[in-house]
């Protein structure tokens, strides 16, 4: 019911409240500068007074592998953090402010209300990852060697999927909670649980963290696959969105 109109409003809100620009700026800065950092880090260290040759030798030599690794690490850390931080307040804030009550008596279903927010966040992260990827690809090409387009696109697609999972988890937290504090608690806890489970050797292969490794391997041409992690990530994301919709549908505003 009115999904496109509500999504358009959400996108306008992302723009007017600078959320779009902030997400874009953080992802682009950390993504794009990764090859630059990899290339120039040794020179920057050399310039530090008192830096011993042993320490400098211990640093890995700049390479395309290092550049891709740095890109994935930066996007992983900041992307997940941004996904949680920028999503955890978007529903609960409207409940507290009263705009949810005002709009949910209009022809806007509760599912539309939630899914439009999820879609707007996804579009923003898509734009951020796209520009960051383009910048990173360009600088890697200039400073090291060209990366194959296909695997690099796949890497970024997998990263976006992981971010969407964290957006869905934070949205669930925001839909359940009645106050910002609770929303923060639920969203961050859910993010930590998924991250910790992904770090466990026994089941880690089935969690979203594995998608980053898989993407890196694809770019570097190493044989690897993590389809179970992909399925589990999509599964958790859909489950989180369904749970958010079901809970929100029965919730008193």
């Amino acid at each position, binding site marked *: *019911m009115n999904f496109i109109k509500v999504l358009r*409003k959400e996108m306008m809100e992302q723009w007017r409240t600078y959320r779009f620009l902030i997400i874009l700026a953080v992802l682009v800065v950390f993504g794009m500068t990764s090859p630059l950092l990899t290339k120039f880090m040794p020179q920057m260290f050399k310039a530090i007074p008192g830096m011993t040759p042993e320490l400098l030798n211990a640093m890995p030599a700049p390479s395309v592998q290092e550049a891709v690794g740095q890109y994935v690490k930066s996007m992983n850390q900041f992307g997940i953090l941004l996904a949680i931080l920028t999503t955890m307040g978007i529903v609960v804030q409207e409940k507290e*402010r009263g*705009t949810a009550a*005002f709009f949910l008596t*209009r022809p806007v279903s509760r599912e539309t209300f939630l899914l439009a927010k999820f879609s707007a966040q996804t579009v923003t992260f898509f734009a951020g990852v796209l520009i960051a990827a383009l910048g990173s690809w360009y600088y890697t090409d200039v400073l090291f060697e060209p990366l194959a387009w296909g695997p690099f696109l796949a890497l970024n697609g997998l990263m976006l999927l992981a971010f969407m999972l964290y957006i869905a988890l934070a949205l669930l937290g925001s839909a359940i909670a009645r106050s910002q504090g609770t929303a923060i608690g639920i969203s961050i806890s859910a993010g930590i649980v998924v991250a910790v489970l992904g770090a466990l050797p026994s089941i880690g292969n089935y969690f979203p963290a594995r998608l980053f490794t898989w993407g890196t391997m694809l770019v570097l041409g190493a044989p690897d696959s993590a389809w179970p992690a992909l399925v589990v990530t999509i599964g958790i994301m859909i489950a989180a969105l369904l749970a958010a919709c079901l809970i929100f549908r029965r919730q008193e*505003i």
Partner: protein
Amino acid sequence: MNAVSVQNLKKYYGPVHALDGLNMEVAPGAVYGFLGPNGAGKTTTLRLLTGLAIPTSGTAQVAGVDVFKMRNRLAPHIGHLPEEPAFYPWMTPREFLDYLGGLYGLNGAALLARRKELLALVRMEDVSKRRIAGFSRGMRQRLGVAAALIHHPEVLFLDEPASALDPAGRKEVLDLIEGLRGQCTVVMSTHILADVERVCDVVGIINKGRMVVQAGRQELLERYAIPAFELEADDHAALTQWSEKLPRLPWVSGVTPQNGSIRVIVKDTRAAKQNLLKQAIEAGLILNRFEEVRPSLEDVFLQLVGTESVS
């Protein structure tokens, strides 16, 4: 078919019975004053009737739609103005009304015309391109009224629409509501008796989650009015002395001394009109005032609800 019909509606929050078997009927086209002390259950009722809350039990129909079984079909039929309407502060009134109009399927020239009409109605043409973030409470309330009316709703729910406004803002909002008479059914919750007296033609009084009485305003005043006369004289001692004899008269049921005057409660208004003034003059009293007391909604309210929480 009534515009609003509520049967045995209950809403419990744990041990708190916010609504305890509410029954309510609002005829189409009425301006219905939903009156009650703070905490009586007015806002809970409106939240239930607009689909924002879920009842413990009971049924309700608004504009022919079963509120609790077909919540998704309710929106096109109702307009809702919460006590503190909330907006997206980054929007302008123009953008806001366009967005809302779009949700109701308005577009193109029809939307433009409706937006223009509403901005004129709430006198906001001058600020239509300003961000809502800087608006005063009164401006937000007026914009809320415009928003609630954008799709010509059949039933308009207003929750304390003027309670937090200054006298000028209150007058503006009440004028707006008065102007809606005949256009749609209005259900206005309030604890301000003067507002109801001014704009509503039907009154429902709620207390402790139950409907105490529901009737036309005039009917209510007549039904619950205490027939009384007030007399005031400079010589208060003489007036009081004379009034002590009045309870012996067959048509008088009691006398209450007040500040500088007396209130005579009568059993037979006709006999009182014929005799009371005559007897006062014969007793040599020089009266400053002789008045048949016109009952107010406040008198009715106090009789029915009590004095503990009246504003």
